[in-house]
């Protein structure tokens, strides 16, 4: 077991990765919150006259997911640089520890740190300043425990694995390459899906409600299986592929 995981070694690695990532995380935060402040909040206040209630959830979802995907794409940044990859691969830690440290930082670490910072941002920055600019606007503090926020976190938790796979396998331009691949796969999957359930898709139905038109039809099982695979298989599959990519990586 010591070959694969040693808590003391792992903590040393985590400390190293945190220090190395600190500047990147700081810049990502500066950009994210700067954009939120100037583009998100102020533009909403100025442009949308009819908006009298602001509750931050849209901004939270967008920035958590996009910021997290960008961060995950940078997870194994050293591997994209042939001069840095030798150092990274010969660093005395196991492949599992290297994977786990980056997974923790970009998945759970990002969710917790970003949500907490976002909460502080809404309470101490966005809402007081927003209220001063427009007295008619009402602001609600961001609630990281709301159903919506938890749901966004769950989606991010599952989907960020895809960008970890990209980070471990692509060399350079990881984020656009991963996006391109995801879109390509989505087009192929969507086309197949259309051929299988095209008729149903032509009908005027809402597929995500309790009135799911598939209920009672044979395709419903496929739909349930797809949902199950999304929530329970996609992330672990991506983590395993990421680990194997790191393990088999050569310079």
């Amino acid at each position, binding site marked *: 077991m*010591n*070959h694969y995981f*040693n808590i003391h*070694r792992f903590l*040393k690695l985590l*400390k*190293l990765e945190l*220090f*190395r990532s600190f*500047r990147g995380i700081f810049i990502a935060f500066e950009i994210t919150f700067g954009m939120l402040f100037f583009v998100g909040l102020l533009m909403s206040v100025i442009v949308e006259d009819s908006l009298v209630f602001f509750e931050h959830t849209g901004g939270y979802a967008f920035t958590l997911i996009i910021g997290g995907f960008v961060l995950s794409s940078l997870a194994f940044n050293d591997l994209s*640089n042939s*001069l*840095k*990859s*030798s*150092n990274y*691969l*010969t*660093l*005395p*830690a*196991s*492949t599992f*520890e290297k994977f786990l440290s980056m997974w923790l930082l970009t998945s759970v670490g990002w969710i917790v740190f970003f949500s907490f910072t976002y909460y502080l941002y809404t309470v101490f920055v966005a809402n007081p300043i927003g209220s001063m600019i427009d007295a008619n606007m009402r602001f609600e503090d961001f609630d990281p425990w709301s159903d919506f926020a938890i749901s966004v976190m769950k989606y991010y938790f599952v989907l960020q694995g895809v960008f970890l796979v990209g980070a471990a396998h692509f060399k350079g331009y990881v984020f656009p390459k991963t996006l391109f691949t995801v879109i390509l796969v989505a087009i192929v999957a969507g086309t197949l899906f259309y051929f299988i359930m095209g008729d149903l898709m032509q009908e005027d139905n809402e597929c995500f409600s309790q009135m799911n038109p598939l209920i009672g039809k044979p395709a419903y099982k496929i739909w349930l299986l797809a949902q199950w695979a999304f929530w329970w298989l996609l992330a672990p599959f991506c983590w395993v592929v990421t680990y194997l990519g790191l*393990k*088999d990586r*050569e*310079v």
Partner: protein
Amino acid sequence: MVQIENVSFGYPSKPQLFEDLSVSLPMGNIYGLLGKNGAGKSSLLKLIAGLLFPKTGSLHVSGFSPRERRPEFLSEIYLVTEEFEVSAMGMKRFVELYSPFYPRFNHELLQEYLNEFSLPTDEKLTSLSYGQKKKFLLSFGLATDCQLLILDEPTNGLDIPSKSQFRKVVASAIHEERSFIVSTHQARDMENLIDPIIILDEGQIVFFEDYEQISQRLIISKVKELPTHDGVVYTESTFSGHTIVEENTSGAESNMNLETLFNAVVNNKEKVQEIFKNQTITR
């Protein structure tokens, strides 16, 4: 101990670089790895460090298979590559973050090496010159006390005083429990440091001898007129005459000239191998 047995390796869509390569490198030596451009020196070092994987054959370093990249193995090797990029952090921070991964890291020795190279102790790594960065990484690698230190072109970018400091520092750091493999084109920089000499040519180790054996079997001398006897292995024209490499039949001691030796081996390997035929070329 590095044990390479029947290793084959090649890059995708290129001719095979190594075919059935076998060599054994016991501990306690500073191996000098020489070879022409593209001979596969850096690839061999990367195979040993677990950064490339052999297609066939087996490769073990201190009982570990490098391709598994186990932490216990990685803490016993340190690789200083020819080209590198350092992290944007101070020297002290680098030592604080990286040294705990090496169980026998010696901070006092590191300080000694830094002093020997006249390096500052807490500059930002990115603000150092290329040569200073290289000397820092070399000092760090030596201070890890790892079993196998791999140096790829270590004197490239070093100024003249630093080259002799390099030889002094490296020679002082070797002991019976560790080995250094030094790959270089700068043969003159390595004279009196590397022993044995390994010459790689066309994917094979064509020469693997220590200084004692070389001086017993070959003699390198300068002459005005070229000799005509069969024992001549290699000749080179110089300003004042010729440098010749010939079989040492007289038992006289010869001054070693690594560049000339290398040229002799690469240009007439059959003859050299015949002279050393009682030695184990592929040990």
